[in-house]
């Protein structure tokens, strides 16, 4: 601790240089923390693990194909299956095409949906009962209900896109869950329409099994049951189902990690250059300190500490700025179709630890060679620089 003052003063010896170098670290850390938090949010389970007993059955070829409703009864008969709800992505337009008006629109079986399948969501029993009884009723995640300021009895009209139907729906109430970006309305609404899939098809099946141990067995049993049918299935856990949307965007993780590594390498070179310049300017001073009795290890420690301190300062400021920016980005993103991926968009402890390790790591890597060179230089050679 008694050396901290000396290290601190040396870090700020050339204020402009330190400011510019620290700013580059800040920028990099802001970018990395935001990207890492976004990646984590995109990979996170929106139910926070509470959906571990839920499975999603989709067509083996992908979400573009429908599954016959006749499969429901056969799935329900598999031991371990508690409840099955057909679910269809309606994908209509609310108001207009602007991203801030995007809503996730899903149809399901209201008789069992919140009672048996999505049972970790919170919904007022009265709202649930009224929704079940209202054929054109819909419930909405509280976030989205507040965003559009819906009140009970409000009507909304969705303009169908791939399903040629413009449902006039009435708002019944809201639910609370990890993902509150969706509205749910009755499958029956579709079944009584002129849509070609009415009473024949569903987008997918959402089902609940009795325990975590049953999950792989039931998933395998479903896919085996339909593997030679006209509509083979692919059964996924809820988390796997979410992750496949990310994969549709390409290898985002690889891209984000690649970008992060490149900018980290660049900033390490910037810090290394600053530390090397600072050490070079102090060759005589360092030799004087060694003349006074400071050992090579002291000099190594001082230069490395200066590098780590500068990097850590940049890192801390970078994280703080990222923590301020992320809620703002989340607020902006919530108005768009990516809002479902922003549910868990925040700086986690894992990201904080990663930022700390990166900051210290950059400092050590950048300071290592200048520190070694400064500590190994002969005293007389250093003194001769000016004498």
């Amino acid at each position: 601790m008694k050396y901290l003052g000396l290290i601190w003063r040396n870090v700020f010896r050339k204020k402009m240089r330190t400011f510019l170098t620290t700013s580059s670290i800040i920028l990099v850390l802001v970018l990395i923390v935001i990207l890492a938090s976004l990646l984590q949010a995109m990979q996170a389970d929106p139910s926070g693990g509470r959906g571990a007993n839920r499975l999603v059955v989709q067509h083996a070829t992908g979400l573009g194909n429908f599954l016959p409703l006749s499969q429901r009864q056969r799935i329900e008969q598999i031991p371990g299956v508690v409840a099955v709800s057909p679910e269809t992505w309606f994908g209509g337009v609310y108001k207009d095409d602007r991203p801030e008006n995007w809503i996730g629109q899903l149809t399901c079986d209201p008789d069992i949906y919140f009672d048996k399948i999505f049972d970790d969501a919170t919904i007022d029993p009265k709202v649930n009962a009224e929704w079940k009884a209202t054929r054109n009723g819909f419930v909405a995640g509280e976030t989205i209900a507040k965003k559009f300021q819906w009140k009970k009895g409000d009507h909304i009209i969705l303009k169908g896109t791939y399903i040629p139907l413009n449902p006039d729906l009435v708002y019944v109430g809201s639910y609370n869950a990890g993902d509150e970006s969706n509205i749910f309305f009755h499958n029956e609404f579709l079944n009584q329409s002129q849509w070609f899939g009415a009473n024949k098809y569903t987008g997918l099946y959402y089902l609940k099994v009795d325990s975590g141990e049953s999950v792989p067995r039931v998933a395998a049993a479903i896919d085996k049951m339909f593997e030679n049918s006209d509509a083979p299935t692919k059964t996924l856990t809820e988390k796997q189902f979410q992750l496949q949307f990310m994969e549709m965007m390409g290898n985002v993780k690889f891209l984000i990690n690649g970008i992060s590594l490149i900018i980290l390498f660049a900033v390490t070179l910037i810090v290394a250059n600053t530390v090397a310049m600072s050490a070079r300017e102090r060759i005589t001073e360092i030799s004087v300190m060694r003349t006074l009795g400071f050992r090579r290890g002291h000099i190594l420690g001082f230069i490395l500490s200066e590098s780590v301190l500068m990097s850590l300062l940049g890192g801390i400021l970078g994280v703080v700025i990222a923590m301020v920016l992320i809620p703002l980005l989340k607020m902006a993103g919530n108005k768009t179709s990516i809002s479902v991926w922003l549910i868990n968009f925040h700086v986690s402890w894992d990201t904080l630890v990663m930022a700390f390790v990166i900051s210290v790591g950059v400092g050590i890597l950048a300071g290592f060679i200048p520190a070694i060179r400064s500590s190994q230089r002969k005293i007389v050679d250093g003194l001769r620089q000016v004498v």
Partner: protein
Amino acid sequence: MAQSAEPLISIEHVEKVYHRDQIEIPVLNDIHLDIPEGEYVALMGPSGSGKTTLLNLIAGIDQPTRGRIVVAGRDIATLSQTELASWRSHTIGFIFQLYNLLPVLTAYENVELPLLLTRLKKAERRKHVETALSIVGLSDRMDHYPRQLSGGQEQRVAIARAIVSDPTILVADEPTGDLDARSGDEILELLRRLNEEFGKTIVMVTHDPRAASRAHRMIHLDKGILHADERTETGATRPV
């Protein structure tokens, strides 16, 4: 001051050869010299004569190619780098021509620097630093940075830094070389006081015969060879 029988510094057949690329450059050749405790010695000679090299060897910041340098009974040529660093911090106070204060530290902090290597507590360090600064007459400038001091004041701070850990030997490499005559005189007077009042053994490199005349002995080097070792008028009255 009473002299001890054994010399404090004993230089025995010391040679120093530098290597530049493939070329050998002999700098000191078979130097033999004894310096008793409490003596004030001036090393003189033209540029390139090897006087700074000899000073560096005595201070333990360089090592001889051949020969022994024994200080207070200890052959410092045999010490490791770590042992030498520790030995220097206890035994040697170094005064440079260009003062070499750390510009980011105040006068107080510069003087405190060698004490950071000791186990002294902050309050004890403060006491030592204040004493050293008062000896050099700069108690009122302890919060000033080097850039806020004159050359003479900077050199006095450097002397305070050299004496703060109470070393046995002070080595000074042209301590007045960068100062005007008046400031130079003040520094030489300070060195005399440190020698006479505090008993410090001083080895000083200088080009200036006037500065050298303040010492007890003048040792002349030329081309790495010890040419003359004579007692000054100041030293003539001193018991040997």
